[in-house]
């Protein structure tokens, strides 16, 4: 039996190798070395960028951000707190071992284990138990109705058979040599070489058409761009500057350009515990004094959107009735005057931000804009870790310029609830509104999407009315894809949503 089995794998690998000779390769780039190719432990973006091809969750988002089954065959709520997953019975791990409910249970137990650190544990804390009903049926019982009961299970599943005897997952070799159920498997992960993935021939949907993915390590943004320009990458991202100024006809002939809003926004947050910003008139004045559209125009050459509030457009929580204020210097000056500041005694404050990314440019543009309203904004721009540890976390600032990346299912608790003001929480600006607190708590227990959305739209409007942040810009994500690849389409979850079906014509 064993013999038979290994013969089969041997034969398969052989066939596999001969077939890859003709199969095409997808060239991608990564900007840093992935730290751990383990979806539940990775805290860096590059790790997830690579690991996403090797693992699956029970459910996933489709092109239009609807939840659809992935490793699960179907799912249903028995009541508000009980969720049943029926699993697919045709899934194999890439080493041939069958996937079963055991793996789901194991993944859950690993995540909540005190021996590991995972940033994803918070969602699982609301679960009372996970039970295996049979080999392909799992029951999840929540302690109370939980609004993200379903989304939590987008978490990728780990192989129990491979890891059950692992003493310490944090330092396990598995993190460098992972094994999953996904469309690709890892064949080369060597620090000084490119990362290579091969199509998993037994992937449960179908074997990916593109036989190989190579990730090129390009730590420098300009290096990535130069590689794109010399047509050595199939998919890449462009900055608006590159799109507007740095590409030529030849580039446009080779690549199709896709543009969609990114899932993040930038903001200026006020320290509401500071006397200067307790006065709502000041915050409103600053909001009227800045020109968000100019920020979009200079920083992103128009490839972005003015941000109107704390949740992303395109999600149910977005409140489209809330509009960004029109710049009104006269009104801003009047408000400042009311609050006791004028040209002789200008309002002075310090804005801190990190030197990463576009932070320092935006800060300089804002400084320039505020000067027109007679506001003196000093800048303090620091290295990221120093900024975080000496400014943000100890709340040692008057105002900060930062950004948030958001998931498609918003969770206002960690940023807007007054309980998150405590040490280590992310409400570092000290925002407190009992109405918002109540709505957040209420929404937390609503499983029904529509009712949930209504509550969140209300939260959206209430937060914006208080001006705790100046919501600034949602940039566009500009992705280019080699024209030889079909079928490619944009989606709220990015162009890579259907890579398994991509075909690359090699000439």
């Amino acid at each position, binding site marked *: 039996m064993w013999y038979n089995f290994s013969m089969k794998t041997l034969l398969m690998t052989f066939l596999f190798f001969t077939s890859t000779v003709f199969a095409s390769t997808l060239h991608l780039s990564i900007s840093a070395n992935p730290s751990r190719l383990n979806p539940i432990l990775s805290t860096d973006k590059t790790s997830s960028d690579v690991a996403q091809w090797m693992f699956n969750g029970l459910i996933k988002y489709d092109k239009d951000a609807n939840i659809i089954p992935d490793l699960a065959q179907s799912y249903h709520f028995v009541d508000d707190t009980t969720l049943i997953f029926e699993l697919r019975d045709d899934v194999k791990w890439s080493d041939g071992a069958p996937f079963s409910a055991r793996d789901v249970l194991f993944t859950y137990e690993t995540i909540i284990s005190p021996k590991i650190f995972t940033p994803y544990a*918070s969602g699982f804390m609301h679960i009372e138990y996970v039970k295996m009903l049979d080999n392909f049926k799992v029951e999840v019982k929540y302690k109370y109705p939980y609004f993200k009961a379903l989304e939590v299970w987008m978490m990728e599943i780990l192989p129990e058979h491979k890891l059950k005897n692992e003493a310490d997952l944090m330092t396990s070799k598995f993190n460098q040599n992972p094994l999953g159920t996904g469309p690709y498997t890892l064949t080369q992960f060597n620090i000084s*070489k490119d990362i290579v993935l091969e199509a998993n021939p037994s992937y449960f949907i179908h074997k990916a058409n593109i036989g190989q993915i190579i990730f090129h390590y390009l730590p420098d943004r300009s290096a990535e761009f130069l590689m794109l320009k010399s047509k050595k990458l199939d998919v890449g991202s462009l900055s608006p500057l590159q799109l507007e100024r740095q590409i030529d006809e030849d580039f446009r002939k080779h690549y199709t350009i896709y543009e969609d809003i990114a899932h993040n926004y930038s903001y200026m947050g006020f320290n509401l515990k500071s006397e200067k910003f307790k006065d709502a008139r000041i915050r409103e004045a600053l909001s009227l004094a800045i020109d968000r559209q100019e920020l979009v125009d200079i920083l992103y050459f128009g490839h972005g959107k003015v941000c109107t509030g704390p949740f992303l457009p395109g999600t149910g929580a977005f409140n489209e009735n809330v509009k960004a204020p029109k710049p009104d210097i006269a009104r801003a000056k009047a408000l400042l005057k009311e609050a006791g500041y004028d040209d002789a005694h200008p309002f002075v404050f310090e804005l801190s931000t990190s030197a990463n990314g576009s932070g320092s440019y935006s800060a300089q543009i804002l400084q320039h804009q505020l000067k027109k309203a007679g506001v003196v904004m000093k800048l303090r721009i620091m290295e990221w870790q120093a900024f975080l540890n000496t400014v943000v976390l100890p709340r040692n600032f008057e105002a900060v310029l930062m950004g948030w*990346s958001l998931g498609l299912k918003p969770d206002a608790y960690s940023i807007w609830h007054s309980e998150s003001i405590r040490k280590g929480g992310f409400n570092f600006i000290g925002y407190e509104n009992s109405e918002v607190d109540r709505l957040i708590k209420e929404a937390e227990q609503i499983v029904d999407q529509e009712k949930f959305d209504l509550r969140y739209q209300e939260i959206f409007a209430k937060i914006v009315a208080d001006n705790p942040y100046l919501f600034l810009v949602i940039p566009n994500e500009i992705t280019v894809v080699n024209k030889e690849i079909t079928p490619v389409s944009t989606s709220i979850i990015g162009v890579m949503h259907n890579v398994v079906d991509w075909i690359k014509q090699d000439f």
Partner: protein
Amino acid sequence: MKLVLQKFGYVVLMLCIISLISFGAIHLAPNSFFASGELNPNITPESLEQLKRVYGLDKSLSVQFFAWFKAMLQLDFGISFASGKAVRDEILERLPITLLMNIISMVFVFILALYWGIKSAMKQTSFYDKSIKQVALISYAMPSFYLSLLLVMLFSVQWKIFPISGLHSQGMTGNGIAYMADMAWHLILPIFVMVFGGLGSLVLYVRSLTLNILKSDYIFFAKSRGIEGKDLLIRFILPNLSPPIVTILGLSLPGLIGGSVILESIFAINGMGLLFYQSALSRDYPVIMGILIISSFLTLLGNMIADLVLTKLNPHFKRRG
């Protein structure tokens, strides 16, 4: 032998001081574990506490230090926070490329510096000498990142002669000649920058050493006996040049494993320089400490060897007063 032991004792003592200082400096600094340029709102205060527990950072500083020190004596530098790999493995992964580049460039630098330095000294004040000297001064004054940017701009972007960055072309695998050639082709620009940057000071040094030798009495006598050209070079100049050159070699020892952060980031080479820089930026303590200790050990060792060689070659010389 006693001298060797004494010096080695000094190296060990210094290492202890360095460990203590750097450990303190690193661990007393405020820290969090948001490595990238973004906060992750999913990380709760509770899970951060758990992180500290998992890494043993909740214990007292002295307990942490002694645990680290004890392990360090067995060459175990702990586990990287970022990757969960042993720091030793992490370093061993990055070391070969840095070592390779440094050795190649050092060989070039020494050969060229000796050649040009001696030749320039022997033809002092000639046009040749003046041009060599000016080139050496230029090499001194040229910021390496500027030179790299200019070279990439011209050779890689404009004329497309050399690759832009990285170590390998696409799809280059295996270990054959083609693979080696491909890698050499990628290494030309960064190594040129390294050689050019290192050359200046050494050419000037060799030149002034040779000038001093040429001024000495024995050269005068040798010349008066009719010894000239190659003979003079081989019998008198080179032997007298060797002690200071050996010293310089000894002092370059730590430089062998320390990669240049700027070069490695411009040319996208995953070497020691980038590792150290990135772990410093993300406050990955075990990696920072590991690299600091190894490089200070080599620095001290290099100094020690240079000292011993000098004392051996010239008993009158004692660097340590």
